[in-house]
Each structure stands twice: as C-alpha cells, then as structure tokens.
C-alpha cells in the first residue's frame, strides 16, 4: 500500500488532481481510499487529500507518506515531516526547498505551454503515477468524464508530459478493482437510499451533508424522484414526514446544527408513527465548530433528542459498503416499525472516497408489509397483537388515515384519559423490544479471543482495523476490536462475550467524553479501562491508535 498526499490552496485544483489520480489508480486495478482535509473557505487556505492505494481497498489513511504532490510551497512545509526517507515531493521548479526528496518539475511551464496553468496538476499526477509504475492508459476516458470537452486534450498531454518526466521508482501495486465504483461515503449512502426506494428527499445545505442533497438532485430526473431544498431544516424534516405519511419513502439529511433544528420533528415521527430516515453527518461541535472537519460527538444527542420517550434506532456508518447496506436497512426498519431511524455518519466517511464493488440493486430487499384489510373501519393506530398498526395512506377507500402529535386513540383523535395514554405508550415503546430482535452485533476485527479489546464505532472502523493488524503483527498480545454499527438500541451479546475474555477494554472515539463507553456502561454495566480520544477534527489513524495504546501501556 502506498500513501500519497496532494496539497494546495483551495481553488488550486487539489480536487481535480485527486480525482484523476483515483480514477487512474483504479483503472490500474488498485483499491483506493482518499480522505479530504478541507478548510471552511472557498479559495485560499490549505487543503490536502491523502490518497492511499494497494491491492486491497484501504479503509483508512496513514501518516507515513510515500509521496507528496505539492501544488504550493506551504504543502511541503506542512507535511514533509510525514514523508518517508525514500519518499518524493513533486513540485514546481519555482518552489524553493532544500528537501533532498524534492523532484522539481516544470509543472507550470509544461501546463502553460499546453495552454493553461490549470493543467499543472495533471502534469504532477502523470509524474506521480510513473513513480509508482502505474500505467496511464485510461487517461483520456477519465478526463472525458470529468472535464469539459475543450480541456480534455490539454490535460491528457499534460499527464503524459509528467509521465515522461520521471522514471519509475516504486514497485507497481494493483489488484482487481478496475471494475469497481469509486465514490464518497455520502454517495454510497445516497445510492443505498435509491436502491431502497427513496422517493422524496428534503434538506437544507450544510457541510458535510450537502453532497447527499446535491447528488440526489443531480439524479432526480433520471430516477423520477423529488429532491427539495427546503427553506430551513425544520421545513425539511416536516416535509419528509409529510411525504412519508402520504406513502413515499422519505429521507432528510444534515449535520449536527441542522439536526438540532429537527429534534422536535424527530419526536413527531416517533409519536405519529411515521417512518423516517434521518441522516446526521457529524462534524466537530459545539454549534458551528469546525464545519469541514470530522468528529463523533453526536451519539448521545441522537439517542435522547426530543422531549418525551419514543422508540428510535440509531445506526452508525462504518465504511462505504456499510453506508450503502445500512441505508437500505434503515429504510426497511423505519417502515417495518414505523419509527425514525437515524444514520450517523461523519465527515471522514462522508467526504472520503473509496473503491467498492458494484452491488446489485435488484437484490436489495425492500420490506413490504402485508396489506391487512381494515376490519371494521380503518384505524391508523389500531392495537394489534404484533404491536404494529397496519399502515395505509391517504387516498385509500378503506377509511381515513390520520397522524397526530397529541396523544391519541386508535383513530388518531386527541385523548387525555389515563388508560388510552398508557396503552398507546406501551404500544409505541414496545417497538423498542421488537427492534432488539433486529439488531446486528458489532463487527469483531483482529483476534477472535482478544486479550486487549478495542471498542469503537462508525468510521473508526478503518483506523481500528489497521490498528489491530499492526498490533497483532507485533505478536506481543492478542488484540481485537469491536466496531459498532447499531448503537441504539445497543446490541450487547458479542460485547459481553468478548469483554469477559479480555484483560483490558479500551474505547477509541473521536470525541472528548467517550460517548460510546458511557452508553455501554449505562446499558451493560461494562466499564472500559482506558480511552483513546481525539477531538481536534482530524481522524485517528491506525498508527496513532497503536502509538497511543503503547503510551497507555497496553
């Protein structure tokens, strides 16, 4: 596996260069994984991406760089300390650096000769690929997909010029990923939603969730669905509830601040028993925080948001394939139990790209309730043996369909009596018990019988996978990691089992307070022995987990 950093100012073409790189690496068979480190601004500042590639698709970034593509001087200054001794720095010849690893090229010169300095990135990408002994055959096709027709030829030439400018240095890696997709976590989630039958998406722009809205909008005409930018997040969630009530599979997405505004309507979905999928793409808080960076600090908020008590499910997304699969599952669980299901993602996963096999959307199982005939007049909130009231939609001739935010009777009419209240509460809360049968245990990574058990959730999957691999390779002890996807209700079978056998339990989280560890203590009584926490908006790498574990003495 190799690690390449591409850095420059916002607007300098870091993204274009990375896209080209990714596409050509994939075309050469590599599994690719990229994380994006962005500043909250449109131009200027310093942005960089870490592109990692190898035979298998990596699931996390690494701190040890094999190469740097520096579109400006700052990039070298900021990142050279992570470059391996044998690594390289591709930069324009004008850049002043005393680093012996630098390979100054006429990036600008070549690009300008070809017509525009904007092609400089392509020159660098060509050179980098040559250094990694990777062919660039598919270049034209790649540019045809990503660029305006007029720019294709120039960039192909720039890429080729870069390719010719250096000699191969690293052994070629590759695999069988050429036929896979390459996509961000947000797109994987969006595809899952479409496969699950999404008909209505409403949202208000907010980093890092906006690309779900934008992607769905861009395909809405093809798919024949409605994608609506709402006037605010409150409208977005209430629209999604209205759409779902009327019979369309509906979703709404945002980040923490927008979710805060959806809290009341979250309860409406629970009370009115209207299925709803909500996405929270986490970023560092509180409030505006660090808008374009990553964190896992909304867990407890998701579990207890909104006044009163009602059943809900919270699923943390671990990686790209998980995002696709869990989104489909979220729609089915929301519909089956008529509850809100929250998908908890974060910037690391949402903006990060990875290669991933093309799933078969026709095989996506779509929950379809039996059409129960209305006995004696349809009652939306009928007390049934199963605990679930059959759903119908406005327009049915079987009766009238209602939704009510007040406490209500079976027909959805306001009540205040104690008996009906208790029955309705029991009916709703009973669904939490039913949900428990649907829970997926966390994924166990590393050793089957770990002595040291790491516990994490969501997008730390990749870094934890890497960490236990590195740790077990050392062979000093048996390390394992449990990475939770379902976080509420909390599955506890595997945790109890593995915790019982481990000598140390360590939670690893991207937050200050160790929220999963707290939840585990509340739900199971199990205490962790130490925690590795990070809350500066940058994701832990596998290497950092290992390092800090050592510091903690495990």
């Amino acid at each position, binding site marked *: 596996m190799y690690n390449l950093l591409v850095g420059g100012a916002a607007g300098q073409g870091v993204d274009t260069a990375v896209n080209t790189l990714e596409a050509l690496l994939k075309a050469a068979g590599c599994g690719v994984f990229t994380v994006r480190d962005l500043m909250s601004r449109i131009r200027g500042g310093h942005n960089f991406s870490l592109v990692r590639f190898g035979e298998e698709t990596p699931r996390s970034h690494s701190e040890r760089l094999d190469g740097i593509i520096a579109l400006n001087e700052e990039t070298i200054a900021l990142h050279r300390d992570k470059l391996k001794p044998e690594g390289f720095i591709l930069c324009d010849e004008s850049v002043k650096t005393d680093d012996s690893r630098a390979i100054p090229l006429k990036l600008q010169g070549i690009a300008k000769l070809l017509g525009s300095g904007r092609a400089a990135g392509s020159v660098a990408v060509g050179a980098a690929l040559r250094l990694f002994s990777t062919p660039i055959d598919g270049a034209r096709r790649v540019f045809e997909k990503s660029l305006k027709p007029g720019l294709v030829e120039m960039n192909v030439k720039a890429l080729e010029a870069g390719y010719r400018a250096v000699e191969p240095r690293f052994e070629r890696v590759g695999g069988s990923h050429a036929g896979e997709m390459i996509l961000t976590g947000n797109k994987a989630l969006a595809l899952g939603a479409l496969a699950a039958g999404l008909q209505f998406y409403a949202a208000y722009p907010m980093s890092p969730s906006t690309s779900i809205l934008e992607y769905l909008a861009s395909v809405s005409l093809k798919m024949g669905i409605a994608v609506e930018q709402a006037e605010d997040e409150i409208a977005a969630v209430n629209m999604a509830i209205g759409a779902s009530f009327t019979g369309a599979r509906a979703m709404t997405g945002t980040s923490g601040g927008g979710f805060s505004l959806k809290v009341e309507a979250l309860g409406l979905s629970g009370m009115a028993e209207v299925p709803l999928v909500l996405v929270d793409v986490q970023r560092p808080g509180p409030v505006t925080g660090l808008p374009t960076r990553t964190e896992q600090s909304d867990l407890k908020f998701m579990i207890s948001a909104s006044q009163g008590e009602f059943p809900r499910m919270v699923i943390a997304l671990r990686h790209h394939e998980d995002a696709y699969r869990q989104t489909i599952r979220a729609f089915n669980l929301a519909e089956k139990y008529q509850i809100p299901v929250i998908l908890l993602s974060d910037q690391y996963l949402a903006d990060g790209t990875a290669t991933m096999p093309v799933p078969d959307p026709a095989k996506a199982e779509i929950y379809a309730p039996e059409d129960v005939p209305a006995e004696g007049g349809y009652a939306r909130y009928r007390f049934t043996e199963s605990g679930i009231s059959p759903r119908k939609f406005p327009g049915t001739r079987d009766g009238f369909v209602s939704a009510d935010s007040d406490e209500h009777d079976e027909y*959805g009419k306001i009540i205040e009596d104690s008996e009906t209240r208790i029955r309705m509460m029991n009916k709703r809360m009973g669904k939490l018990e039913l949900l428990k049968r649907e829970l997926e245990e966390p994924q166990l990574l590393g050793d089957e019988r770990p002595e040291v058990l790491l516990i994490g959730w969501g997008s730390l999957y990749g870094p934890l996978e890497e960490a236990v691999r590195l740790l077990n390779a050392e062979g000093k002890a048996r390390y394992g990691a449990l990475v939770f996807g379902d976080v509420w209700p909390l599955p506890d079978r595997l945790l109890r089992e593995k915790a019982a056998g481990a000598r140390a339990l360590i939670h690893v989280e991207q937050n200050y307070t160790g929220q999963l560890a707290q939840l585990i203590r509340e739900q199971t009584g199990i205490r962790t022995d130490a925690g590795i926490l990070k809350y500066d908006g940058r994701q832990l790498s596998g290497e950092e987990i290992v390092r800090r574990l050592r510091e903690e003495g495990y």
Partner: protein
Amino acid sequence: MSDSRFETFETAWCPGCGNFNILDSLKNALDELALDPHDVLMVGGIGQAAKLPQYISANSFSGLHGRAVPPAAAAKIVNPALTVIINSGDGDSYGEGGNHFIHNIRRNVDIAHFIHDNQVYGLTKGQASPTADKGSVTPVQVEGSLNIPFNPVLMAIAAGAGFVARGFSGRPEHLKELMKQAIRFKGYALVDILQPCVSFNKVNTFAWYSQRVYELDKEYDRGDRAAAMLKSMEFGDRIPIGVLYQEEQPTFHEQHEVLKNGQILAGRKNDPELVRELMLEMV
C-alpha cells in the same frame, strides 16, 4: 345539507367561538365541490384552529405547532391526486410558522391554506398573535402590544401568492364561496379568516367585525397586483373581504421536471436498473 359526504364531530371549542362557522363553511364547500372525503387531506398545526382537521371526516395530519405547511406541501408533492387543505391558527401560521408561510408561497404547491385569524393565541389563553392590533392588552402584552401588526394578505401578495383572500367567520356563505375558489385554484391559495375568539379577544368581536367588513364587489379587479396591495392595507373602519388578488402562475408541479407529467411518488418503487446505471457511472 343532509346528504353530506362529510361528517363533523364534537369539538373542544368554546360555545360561541368563531371556529364553528368555519367548520360549517368548509364542510359545505367540500360538499359543493363534490369531493370524496377519502381524497381530502386536512392538515393542521397546533392550536384551537388547528384542531379542525380532527373534527371532520377526512384524512388528517395534526403535526407540530407552526409546521402545518411543510408536510401539507410534501403530501401534495408526492400525491397530487389528493386535495390538501390546511386549517390552522394565526399564531401557528404567521408566528411560529412564518418562515414556511413565506417560502411556501414561493414554492407554489397547489394547496389551500385557511387561517383562523383571531389575533390571539387561543389555546395558550390569549397572548397577542402576530396579527394583534397595536395596543392590544393581554396577559403578556400588559402595556399593550408594541409590534406593528402583521398584515397577512399584504405579505402574501408581496411574497408572490397567486390567490389571496380574506373571509369572515360571521359571513359563512361568503366564506364557503371563498373556500371553494381557493380549493379550486391551481397553486398556493390563502384565505385569512377573521375569527372572533369569544374567550380571549374582547375587542375584535363578531359585532366589531360585522360593523366593518364589506364584500369586494364585481368592479374590483382582482388581477391588479399593485391595486391589491393597496386594498390589502385597508384594515380599520372598513375591512374588505373577498378575493383580494388572483393571478394564475405556474405551479410547483407544472414546472417540476419529474412531476409535471402526473408522476405519483406515493407507493412507488425505484427501478433497480436505473440505480445500477448510476452505479456504473461511478466505475
């Protein structure tokens, strides 16, 4: 009307409340439009007015305070075969829900929005609503309301609404006709309904309104936006009721590339082949 297809139920309103006539007018309007109750979706927020959807035999959505419009618009978006009608209060629609009011006018989904305008928050016992007159004394506005009253019809016209009317609960026949027109109108249609609250508004009573309201006559040109705005500013000794402004403009559905051909999203599934094509674009 004895052969009505719509039943109404016992209410929790105070005896003498202006809401009763509104319920009657609505029932009659729906009957005269020969709508099947199963195709009608009544939407409300929270408040006295917003209970109306609970009191008539149709589909109903009783959501959150201030949030009646977004689910109503969405319901219509996903199933245009439904007749979607909002009945809610002035606090609900213009106060807590003010942002949705403005922006759904701009969205122009084909729904009718009937606002029971009693100038108070009835269900919470009489505080000033946005339409309260300056100087109104309430348990919160102890020295009288200081705020410039919200003029819903003027605001609606300014925001671009295509159908803007004012009705009066004390003129149920006239109100019924307004409701019919609003429901028939293609696009967002507003009827602000003057509704005496006998418990908390001792100023703007049936008598007070009866002395002031007058019906716009045939001469009135409801198509002139500038004139309509001027007319909308008339609220004092004389209060015009009727359709203040009407002008068809493309609805949300008519302009929407997906929906313009009558696509119903409710109950629909996606074609996996199309999803696969999207995936292949990422290869």
